[in-house]
């Protein structure tokens, strides 16, 4: 099933003929305070709602996708957890220690939205396409055998990133938390539609030119392991999202006027437009230097620590 948010604050499911069926009224019984509650409520009560949803889909009368305005299917998740460097990227180095950061959930954008580059003097702004896992229930200390049951579905994600801000002596991730920099789309597909998240292709095209193009089989730690580890640290809630990291080979700039298309096989494509009031420009095409820096850093891991080796 494909779940969307559309036309401001409506929730819908997309039928096989690519029409959107409105299901917002089915969620009224859970007393949402606002559109941000619709997804967690849908997820929490999905089994109860399933037959209603199927009835709506069968009844049809949906609006063609081309005639609705889509938004991010995640309106305001309570946590956006992002993996740092979770792809091998053509190196044969030993497994890196797992690390993660949190991205501001105020910064959401979706299909057709504009990512606004801030005036801050970043070295460059990069796209980072990823697959993201939407959590299906409250979860803590998930065991290996139950981890995938805690997945509601998957969504395509772009971790838009400003480089070179913050301190020079520590890697700053705050440049990923600017408003509009968390791009999700075009919809959430339920888990049953993706039998193997380690068998997907992720691509980015900017103004029609291919940039990132990688397989999730190259992921260092698979989704199941991310779920067990992350849930051992923090309690996960329905609608929380774990973004599985990017393969940095193929990163490129995002600059004024660009149309950036993020695609994940089995999920779909979404487009974000880039606006920069300062009309800064960078080289177009793939930022190979950035890719090389990531590979080099992986051979000489930053901030190597004694002990505490965790998986």
């Amino acid at each position, binding site marked *: 099933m494909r779940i969307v948010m559309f036309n401001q604050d409506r929730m819908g499911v997309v039928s096989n003929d690519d029409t959107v069926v409105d299901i917002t009224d089915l969620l009224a019984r859970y007393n949402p305070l606002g559109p941000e509650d619709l997804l967690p409520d849908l997820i929490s009560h999905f089994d109860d709602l399933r037959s209603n949803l199927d009835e709506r889909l069968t009844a049809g009368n949906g609006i063609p996708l081309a005639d609705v305005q889509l938004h991010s299917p995640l309106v305001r998740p309570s946590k956006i957890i992002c993996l740092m460097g979770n792809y091998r990227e053509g190196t044969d180095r030993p497994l890196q220690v*797992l*690390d993660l950061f949190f991205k501001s959930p105020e910064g959401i954008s979706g299909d057709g939205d504009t990512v606004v580059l801030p005036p801050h003097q970043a070295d460059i702004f990069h796209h980072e396409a990823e697959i993201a896992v939407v959590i299906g229930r409250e979860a803590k200390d998930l065991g290996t055998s139950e981890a995938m049951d805690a997945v509601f579905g998957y969504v395509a994600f772009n971790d838009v990133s400003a480089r070179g801000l913050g*301190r020079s002596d520590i890697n700053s991730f705050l*440049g990923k938390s600017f408003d509009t920099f968390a791009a999700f789309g075009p919809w959430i597909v339920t888990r049953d539609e993706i039998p193997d998240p380690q068998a997907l292709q992720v691509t980015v095209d900017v103004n029609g030119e291919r940039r990132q193009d990688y397989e999730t089989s190259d992921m260092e730690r698979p989704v199941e392991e991310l779920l067990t580890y992350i849930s051992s640290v923090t309690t996960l809630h329905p609608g929380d999202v774990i973004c599985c990291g990017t393969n940095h080979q193929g990163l490129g700039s995002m600059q004024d006027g660009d149309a950036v298309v993020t695609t994940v096989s089995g999920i779909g494509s979404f487009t974000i437009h880039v606006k920069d009031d300062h009309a800064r420009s960078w080289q177009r095409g793939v930022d190979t230097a950035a890719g090389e820096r990531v590979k080099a850093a992986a051979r000489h891991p930053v901030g190597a620590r004694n002990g505490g080796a965790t998986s």
Partner: protein
Amino acid sequence: MRLVLTADNRLGMLREGGVVDVSSVFDDIRYRAAADRMPRVMAELENRRSRLEALLERGELEALPALLSPAPRPPKLIAASGNFLEGGIGERKPQDMFLQSPDSVIGPGSEVVLPHHDVTIFEHEAELAMVIGKRSKDLPADERALDALAGYTCAMDIAGHGLGRIGPSRIGKSFDTFTPLGPAIVTTDEVPDPQDLRIALTVSGEIRQESTTRDMEYTIVELLAFASSYMTLVPGDVIMCGTQYRGPGALQHGDQAEMTIERVGTLAVSVSDARRREWPRGIDQDVSARQRAAGTA
């Protein structure tokens, strides 16, 4: 005004060591859980001040009940990196901040549960925290920024070191129970000069951290301007202002950690560890020395 959330889900104002129930002033606020109630209450705090002050004056005083954190599961939990002059002189380092898991928040009198993960040490960091009351973006770095605040509270930013690979450790700081916040949201009128507050932390009666917000590298309003230049701040957001590194030490099973910030309050928690790991008691001189040498968080 000093706003608290009681363990039986009532809103109160602190007065003379007790509390006055002010739930009736916020009767109209729809909510589904404490986590979405408190931001809505905080957004209304200043608007309803005269009703609250009247109730505070006339209302029945009850003995202080068990409290929850007044900022449970904040929309954003933001930490300032470093941000204390560690006795070094020279140019200020650029500002930086990072987000932690909102699920790490616990309230006064709660238990910090050390997780089973292998760490080099668990440490405490006593910090002043500010709680946002108004949706804000691009705040100015002057006293006008204080209008965006609902108030201040105490924060213990607890960290497990030796996890992850790039510091500061978001994993190590994001364990459930690792961010005690409370006991109250203290409105800005009660804290005329937030840049002149003593912060002290004791562990099982022994002094560990003693600092003053005079030593903050970046002031409250500079932190607000910086954070809001990146992200829209929303009611309920918490920004922790950083800690002084002379002083952090280990936390281990059986410890009682208590911090006090002048005018803002006292926050106490206990510590448990199923693995019963032991570290030397007292101040961790290694980490203090390293921070002073590097001048980094």
